[in-house]
């Protein structure tokens, strides 16, 4: 865990120094918008006037306190405050889509494994191939056009209506659901194919095991075999995917949040990249990596919780 975090800070540090030559020279030459004062601030913040190894340790020291400096933009807010302001929206949207993905993909994958080589299974397979190939941002455009322009039932921008403040609580909830529907739906669609395929393969493996054959031979009902014997084991590897899908979801939020103008961390990241707001870029890069790390940790813990064999092994060893 700790070596990984140090590695993350190191890679992030390398990214700042990727620019050919002196990062500050390139700043002013590539982007005339960066003023002399911003340049000086940049030098001071990353201690670019000091030797490289000292720069790294100073960056590490700040990192421990989550101090990523001030944003280059007009508001001059602290980077960490800016990120924390935006993070909840992104987290909630991602949690919502993760829950939905599992609710839809697992039954789909398990069913198509059980009904292997039937029409249902083949239809799911075709869906999976298309789902892997479809660019989700393009699907987002089509949905925006269909639901927002032709049918006009869903808002296609932002997370709340302009009169949000004057709504009752119930109206507020409906309003947010309406706004979040398309982004969440599309994010779900994006991960559906992979997970349902994973669940199918996992279930197929289990259905071929001897103990399933033995259960059938003993005349146990199909429903009981599926839910009591097969499903439990088939879902073990699937659990780890929850944690491992974090980087993909967070990365995808850049696209969805910028398409649908949702004020989350992804949109902030996109805006910062466009405006070359380096302190914010670095801050979000590190926070994104830490979230991924937490996701992996969650996967390990979940795996130990659902699979007693892992726990026994750990205890024994």
């Amino acid at each position: 865990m700790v070596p990984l975090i140090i590695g993350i800070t190191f890679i992030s540090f390398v990214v700042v120094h990727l620019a050919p030559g002196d990062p500050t020279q390139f700043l002013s030459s590539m982007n005339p918008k960066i003023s002399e004062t911003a340049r000086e601030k940049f030098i001071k913040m990353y201690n670019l006037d000091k030797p490289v190894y000292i720069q790294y340790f100073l960056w590490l020291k700040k990192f421990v306190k989550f101090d990523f400096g001030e944003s280059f933009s007009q508001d001059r807010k602290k980077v960490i405050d800016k990120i924390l302001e935006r993070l909840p929206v992104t987290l909630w949207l991602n949690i919502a889509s993760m829950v939905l993905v599992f609710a839809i993909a697992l039954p789909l994958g398990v069913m198509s494994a059980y009904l292997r080589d039937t029409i249902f299974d083949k239809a799911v397979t075709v869906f999976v191939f298309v789902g892997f190939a479809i660019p989700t941002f393009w699907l987002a455009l089509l949905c925006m056009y269909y639901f927002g322009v032709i049918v006009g039932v869903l808002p296609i921008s932002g997370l709340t209506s302009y009169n949000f403040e004057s709504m009752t609580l119930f109206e507020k909830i409906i309003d947010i659901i309406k706004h979040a529907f398309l982004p969440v739906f599309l994010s779900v669609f994006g991960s559906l194919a992979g997970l349902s395929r994973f669940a199918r393969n996992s279930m197929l493996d289990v259905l071929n095991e001897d103990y399933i054959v033995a259960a059938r031979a003993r005349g146990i009902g199909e429903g009981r075999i599926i839910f009591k014997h097969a499903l439990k084991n088939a879902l073990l590897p699937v659990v780890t995917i929850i944690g491992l899908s974090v980087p993909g979801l967070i990365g995808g939020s850049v696209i969805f949040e910028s398409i649908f103008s949702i004020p989350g961390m992804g949109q902030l990241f996109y805006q910062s990249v466009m405006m070359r707001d380096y302190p914010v870029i670095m801050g979000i890069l590190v926070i994104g990596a830490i979230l991924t790390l937490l996701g992996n940790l969650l996967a390990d813990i979940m795996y130990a919780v659902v699979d007693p064999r892992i726990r026994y092994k750990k205890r024994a060893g």
Partner: protein
Amino acid sequence: MKKGNLLFICGLVIVVFFILVSIFAPLIAPYDPTSINVKEIFQAPSSKHIFGTDELGRDVFSRVVYGTRVSIFVGFVAVFISIAIGTILGLVAGYFGGIVDIILMRFVDIMLCFPSFFLILAVIAFLSPSLTNVMIIIGLTSWMGVARLVRAETMSVKSRNYIIAAKVQGIKNSIILFKHILPNVASPIFVTATLGVAGAILTESALSFLGLGVQPPTPSWGNILTSGKDNIMFAWWLSLYPGLAILVTVLGYNLLGEGLRDILDPKSKKFGN
């Protein structure tokens, strides 16, 4: 086997079709993809402009045809970079084991911690977006899976008798690695490379869509979609056709890759079967 062949042939037809389109783009495209015609802006698809025209009166069909070149070029170069890095690191880590393996695999773990799209965007923010940078950056951020795969394969191959025999004869490590091990781990690399092209094309189009990839006026499927998004209210054709092109191309590489997997390793049940 039959299933694999079918996937393979479907994929191959699509892939070859788009490669031909990109080679013969100047013959296929009826107009210059960058020529501006203010009199014909936002024309709906018609017999004159079968995919319509964009906000500068450029022919969308011609732009989509030329966009094929960008996609294929980015896909191949990015995958070449990621396969080269992944294969070398995977071979070295798997073959030598020990501390070398630990260090290299830790590096892979660290790289995998970054949401790859974040890492790509951050690097582009520092290096400025361009075709070359996009190809290199996608390549440099997508080799980790290859490295893990090649490492695992190498570890299983290196304990076989013919490798041990080669070692006993005193053959140099570099020759064992590249002449004796590499050919035996090549088939999963081919599969990964084919699927990797699909991934790289998707990433490039997303980057160009966000305005952080291939820059206009060079046509790419992603940056045509950017103007599709800006004019979504009335010019649906700007959004529809480039997206379809991406969908079909990516589908083609995925089918080819899965078919290849079935053919090269009939026992595998990773995907279809």
